[in-house]
């Protein structure tokens, strides 16, 4: 079998990860997470009073996420301001994170999560979710678990983990399939599933298994970074 990966990684090998908690002193919680050249930062503000008032929920606090690329994070400058792509990713990020949070103790309030990509090399939403999950924990919010996220996929017929930009543009055979996932760190509950490309239904299981394994590694990196900030 020929290794199709440009950087010589094994098929289920993640790029080198980096994580740091407490990078934005103004925020109630903050973190950075990197997969190789993809770098995401996240800040949490809140719980705080939610405006406009009609959005308030008297039975629970709500989570609100914003994801976007910084203009210089990609080769072709990204026009600042929300795009349809970034609005969609913001929403799926919110859905990926909210199942671990318990905001019942904060009625009518909001927790704002701001996620920005400083440098993009594919897998930006998953790096953003990993950073945001750590930032929420850093903010001391009641959480059942951490969320770990990774973009799995397929290059031709090979299931791979953590595609970089070069791999996302792979064209041979069945081409590249991008399959970002997120799950609870310590239980079998998937909170994000998106897909672009080609994969037969019977092979989805392989991807789920690969993602579950990768998330264990991500969890260790997240935990280590969170412990470092506690010890400081």
């Amino acid at each position, binding site marked *: 079998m020929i290794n199709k990966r440009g950087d010589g990684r094994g098929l289920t090998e993640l790029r080198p990860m980096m994580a740091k908690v407490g990078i934005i002193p103004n925020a109630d919680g903050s973190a950075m997470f990197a997969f190789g050249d993809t770098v995401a930062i996240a800040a949490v503000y809140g719980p705080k009073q939610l405006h406009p008032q009609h959005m308030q929920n008297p039975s629970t606090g709500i989570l609100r996420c914003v994801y976007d690329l910084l203009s210089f994070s990609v080769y072709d400058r990204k026009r600042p301001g929300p795009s349809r*792509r970034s609005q969609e990713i913001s*929403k799926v990020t*919110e859905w990926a994170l909210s*199942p671990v949070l318990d905001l019942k103790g904060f009625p009518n309030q909001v927790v704002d999560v701001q996620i920005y990509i400083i440098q993009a090399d594919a897998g930006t939403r998953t790096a953003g979710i990993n950073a945001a999950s750590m930032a929420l924990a850093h903010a001391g919010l009641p959480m059942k678990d951490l969320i770990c996220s990774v973009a799995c996929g397929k290059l031709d017929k090979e299931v791979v983990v953590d595609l970089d930009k070069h791999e996302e543009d792979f064209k041979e055979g069945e081409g590249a399939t991008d399959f970002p996932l997120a799950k609870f760190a310590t239980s079998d509950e*998937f909170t994000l599933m998106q*897909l672009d490309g080609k994969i037969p239904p*019977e092979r989805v299981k392989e991807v*789920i298994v690969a993602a*579950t394994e990768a998330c264990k590694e991500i969890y260790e990196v997240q935990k280590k970074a969170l412990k470092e900030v506690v010890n400081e």
Partner: protein
Amino acid sequence: MTMESTNLTINTLKKMFKEGKRFDGRKLDNFREIMVSYDVSNKAEGSARVKVGKTEVIAGVKLAPGTPYPDSLDKGNLMVSGDLLPLASPRFEAGPPGFTAIELPRLLDRAIRESHMIELDKLVIKEGEKVWTVIIDVYPLNDDGNLIDVACLAAVAALKKAKIPELDENGIIDYEKKSEKPLPLAEGILPTSISFFKLGDSIILDPTREEEEACEARITFGVSNWNGQRMINSCQKSKAATFSSEEIESMMKMLPGKFDDVNEKLKKFL
């Protein structure tokens, strides 16, 4: 934009789904009847109207000469857009697009584009300079749930009927000349959207608006045939409830059969 279901409705539906029952007597994994008709507008290059139960969506395909994207000089362009007009439901409001209105065309775009149904490389007018842009617009006329799956049927049906307009000597479309040149489509590829909805531990297909409103999560799959094999081309999970790997696996087992089923129903009208 959302009208929240009452706890009474949610609890009743949860209990009924557990027993495998639905208000309209369908099984949990049954689609409503599918009806397709054509020629919604004779100004469009192709158009279709799809009714699934009381949900009704029209789709129109327009073609316009345009410039290729710098990263695909030898290919035509595809654009999918749509609007949730307040005419279709008291739930839709005028004004800037809400999330559902953004998500719907994006999901259709991915399902259609990744299936390679449209042979974009055959839509070049002058390489590197001028190509056809295929624009699909979808509009729900009546929303009674499962809009994405229904809109996908409408878009695909409209594409099947689409013709490439004639150009005059200046390269401008001459609508007076009736074209019989069909849009180049790959043989046997019909991208189909299949959405699974979850309430409690139950998973249902093709919900009515009331059922959809009560559900806690949705996963939409864009599926097609590729080299004789069924392929998932796109997927998106929505809302905050989670899916276990066992649930994902059981959906994967159901998917090929449901895809064939919906495809057969559509083919009757093509």
